[in-house]
């Protein structure tokens, strides 16, 4: 049988899914053991027990200096910034994208501006943000917004414009005005694409969040990683990175489930398969 035609069974697929992770863990353990055997105070590849100690220290014991449970304080601060930035971007993206997708006059005015803004690398204007908005929360949230908002606006505008024109004509022959078409025909149909667009931009949002925190913050996941980098504390950095990945995965999964639950017509049988 050709390779392209052989498919794994259910159990085999699960095993294959896990295989790379298991291999990575084995390689790490071997490499870590080898280094620690040579130099017990090596910091680059900590042993599993020092990971456990670090997690215990960061998550379940109050910090000696501030009395806070650092991992949770950092997570709360980062998530708040991330959700604010992504939430505000999604709302702006939805409104501006739909309006400029629907109204040629608005599009002619604002579309080139959005394109121009989207071409500026957000990290390049981070100093400007710190100067204008100070070193507080606002500048970090703004960085996320400036980073992902243009992408969301452009995506939503394209989604709106790619609705079949037959639908919009039909709605007009049913007596609808522009506003009614916007809220009853266009808006509900671009909500599922908005959720997918947000899922795709979450990666960039994390990037901008951690970059912002690395430069100016007093708590946050990105702040902590860059702070303890000075002590080569890999036993803390690696669990933090893993934790960020878990949070990102959870957010993505939650958005996917919300979309499936809220928009059955988009994911349903017979519809073009949207994941």
């Amino acid at each position, binding site marked *: 049988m050709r390779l392209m035609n052989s498919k794994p069974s259910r159990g085999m697929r699960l095993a294959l899914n896990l295989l790379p992770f298991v291999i990575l863990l084995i390689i790490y353990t071997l490499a870590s053991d080898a280094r620690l055997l040579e130099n017990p105070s090596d910091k680059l590849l900590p042993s599993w027990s020092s990971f456990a100690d670090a997690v215990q220290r960061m998550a379940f014991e109050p910090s000696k200096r501030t009395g806070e449970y650092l991992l949770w304080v950092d997570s709360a601060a980062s998530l708040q910034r991330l959700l604010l930035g992504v939430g505000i971007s999604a709302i702006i993206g939805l409104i501006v994208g739909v309006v400029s997708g629907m109204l040629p006059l608005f599009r002619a005015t604002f579309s080139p501006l959005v394109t121009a803004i989207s071409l500026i690398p957000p990290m390049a204007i981070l100093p400007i943000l710190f100067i204008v908005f100070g070193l507080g929360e606002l500048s970090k949230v703004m960085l996320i917004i400036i980073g992902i908002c243009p992408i969301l606006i452009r995506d939503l505008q394209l989604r709106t414009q790619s609705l079949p024109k037959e639908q919009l*004509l039909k709605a007009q022959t*049913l007596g609808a005005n522009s506003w009614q078409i916007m*809220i009853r025909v266009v808006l509900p*149909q671009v909500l599922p694409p908005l959720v997918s667009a947000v899922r795709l931009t979450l990666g960039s949002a994390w990037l901008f969040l951690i970059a912002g925190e690395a430069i100016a913050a007093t708590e946050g996941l990105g702040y902590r990683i860059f702070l303890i980098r000075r002590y080569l504390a890999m036993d803390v950095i690696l669990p933090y990175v893993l934790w960020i990945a878990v949070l990102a995965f959870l957010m993505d999964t939650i958005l996917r489930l919300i979309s499936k639950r809220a928009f059955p*017509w988009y994911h349903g049988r017979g519809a073009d398969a949207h994941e």
Partner: protein
Amino acid sequence: MSKAIIEIKQVWKEYGDHVVLEKLNLNVQAGEFISIVGASGCGKTSLLNMLLGTEKQSRGSILLDGKPMPQEPNATRGIVFQKYSAFPHLNAIENVMLGGEFASSPLLGKVFGNERKKLHEQALEMLTAVGLADAALRYPSELSGGMQQRLAIAQALIKEPRILLLDEPFGALDPGIRKDMHKLIRELWKKRGLTVFMITHDLSEGFSLGSRVWVLDKPRIDPHQPERFGAQVVYDIDINSEHKLSHSIQSLIEKQQAAKVAV
């Protein structure tokens, strides 16, 4: 003779130097079923767009009930396209209720309570009339092609438009289903006294459904400048009174088309 519902007077349609339609002079009475046939690219769609209001004629005038045709689609003219006519995010009955909701709720486009109940009843009645009562809660993506077209017809008819435009409504359907749809549309037309314009490139469909057939073609052709002259209604055939004649003309048209294809 009663007042015509649609009057087309000396209408030309041009895109720059390209003449698409010329010298159209036609009157349509309420209750007529007009089939518009012709080769592709002969201006059928331009004519339909002018009736719908998405395109404006270059010269002449088109009157609806004696008044100039509104230059924008509105509820006086219903339309069914070949596809994409139903809204995928609403189930069948919501699709049919939407027209009523637009009319009674300018701000939200959505009604609640008793008003909703009333609209729901009307919509269910309409769905029953097109044979979709059992599928009222299904989304368009869960309906077959024929059922989607039934839905689109119900959606348009609930607004009781002055004229109903059908843009190759059955072109994407299987032959068997198409027969069922012909039966349905003929029934609705007779029962409700609709005025229908149907574009089709299936001649036999045009002749079997229409009470009148317009054949669009170019009577004059300049071989060096094919865009110089536009298409006209070369045959305006009243099916009811001249049923026998129509067959001879039909064979004539078919011969003509076959000859064109051969060239």
